């Protein structure tokens, strides 16, 4: 299953952010979306999730336009971690995560949503996100970073073929930033038990994308967009001009990433 964009234009409130965006994401690939504030990263992710009306171009999953898929089929194909949520959730972390199972059957079919199987899936997702011990805690009592990991667990419980994460590392401490990226990279590759998936991340960092992403999409905020293999895209020159500040390599190895040159 591949997610493809063809001739896509992104618009926010009448302002054109980019045009003619064309790229294809295959299972097993981890894409990093980078760009300055307001360059259209979130708009792009919402569009890839099939949640925005398109003015120009097409987003397809295996040649089928996302906008023509029914809502549930689309939710099995593409899932999104929004940048923020306006929600105030009163239940426990486990209940919160099990809502992610909605498109996959039992919650919709069972009378009043009896869903034992969903809780098993939710427990596994919490474990993957390092939150297994917090299952019974009320969502509202969690810290910002804990909440973020629970929100990611909900997306894991949804288990779409393509995962879109808008700033997944926000509020996470260093250890969990690494764990989360590592987990997502493994999830993308798949293994004997699970299929390979596509992962698309919006990141605000010049260190992690170089280490964890196979591909990158750079939105410059002035209408320009470039997509390609990470080794071609994430060069010091490209990143310096993208963010308008000087960088230096973070180490001697070729994939060490960059840090700001101060």
């Amino acid at each position, binding site marked *: 299953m591949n997610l493809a964009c063809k001739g896509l234009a992104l618009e926010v409130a009448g302002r054109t952010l980019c045009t003619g965006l064309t790229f294809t994401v295959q299972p097993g690939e981890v894409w990093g979306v980078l760009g300055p504030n307001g360059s259209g990263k979130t708009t792009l992710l*919402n569009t890839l*999730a099939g*949640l*925005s*009306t398109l003015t120009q171009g097409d987003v397809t999953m295996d040649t089928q336009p996302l906008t023509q898929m029914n*809502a*549930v*089929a*689309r*939710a*099995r194909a*593409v*899932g*999104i971690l*929004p940048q923020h*949520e*306006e*929600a*105030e*959730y*009163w*239940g*426990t972390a486990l*209940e919160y995560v099990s*809502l*992610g199972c*909605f*498109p996959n059957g039992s*919650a*919709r079919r069972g*009378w*009043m*949503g009896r*869903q034992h199987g969903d809780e098993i899936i939710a427990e596994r997702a919490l474990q993957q996100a390092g939150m297994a011990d917090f299952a*019974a805690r009320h969502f509202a009592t969690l810290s910002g970073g804990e909440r973020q990991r629970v929100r990611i667990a909900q997306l894991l419980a*949804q288990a779409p073929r393509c995962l879109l994460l808008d700033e997944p590392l926000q509020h996470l401490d260093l250890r969990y930033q690494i764990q989360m990226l590592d987990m997502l990279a493994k999830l993308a590759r798949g293994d004997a038990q699970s299929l390979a998936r596509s992962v698309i991340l919006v990141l605000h960092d010049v260190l992690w994308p170089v280490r964890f992403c196979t591909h990158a999409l750079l939105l410059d905020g002035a209408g320009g967009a470039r997509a390609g293999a990470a080794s071609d895209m994430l060069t010091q020159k490209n990143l310096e001009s993208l963010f308008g500040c000087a960088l230096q390599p973070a180490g001697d190895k070729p994939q060490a990433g960059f840090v700001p040159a101060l």
Partner: protein
Amino acid sequence: MRARTGTAAGAAMVTIAAVSLAIALAWGSVPLSLGQVLAGLLDSSSGIPHDIIWQLRLPRALAAFACGGLLALAGVLLQALLRNALADSYILGVSSGASLGALSAITLGFGAALVNTAALTGAIAAIAIVFGVTFRGGKGSGWNVYRLLLSGVVLSAGFAALTSLILVIAPSAQLKGMLFWLMGDLSYAENPLAACALLFVLTLGATALAVRLDILGLGDVKARSLGVSVVALQLMVFFGAALATVAAVMLGGAIGFVGLMMPHAVRLMGITRHRMLVPVSVLAGGSFLTLADTCARTIMAPQQLPVGIFTALIGVPCMLYLLTRRA
């Protein structure tokens, strides 16, 4: 384990509902024992208990139960729709619209049937205005939650001002009848069977949509990305809540605090998923109003007090307590 908490709370709530109905049937100017209540209910040859129960207390108790249940249900639905814990059943301007309609009709000297029609017209007009102002069709974000909340509040304020104007200029002989609509009173409640049937159907419907209501709380973007048809669901919730509130107001006037308080009380019992929150809130709202109404008609008997006074007297301290606890 949590599922068991929910089931236990559900069973407890069914018991409380049955007890509250039994109390409503037993208490009154002629006290009846439990045996007499049962005999009166089942045996038409039991004479006076049979007449008291079937002609006076049972219709009144069922009206109170249906009214409380409908208000609590509307509260749960609107809190889910607005993602706001402080939404209550009157946020759509239904009660102020109905009051204004009824008071206008009373001032003009119309009879009971026309007063009811005017109240219904006022309630529907309020819903239509709120809907027209806030709903934007089309794909994506059908509803701006803040616009909905604000327009309901603004409209209620406008209706309340007109209502005050009528109260000031109305002849004093008419004031008592007007207070029924403003305070909420079940003494004039008519046949409650239609309201009971509506309560049953709406509760069933809302419970069937329980998981979708849970997901709606996560926000529009998340709900749509999980495959929920958000706009269709919002429309169902809006009109379900509006229907429930109109039915309740037509039965008992603007009885306050049930719609706001009951869902909160149930959440504090640890029930947060709509699968249990909906039915348990309905039972809690019904039981609460049945008991409050029993107090209202017995405490100063033979003088009957408007039940709205009791729900507020119990509701205000409870709400203040809950609010301090939350902080």
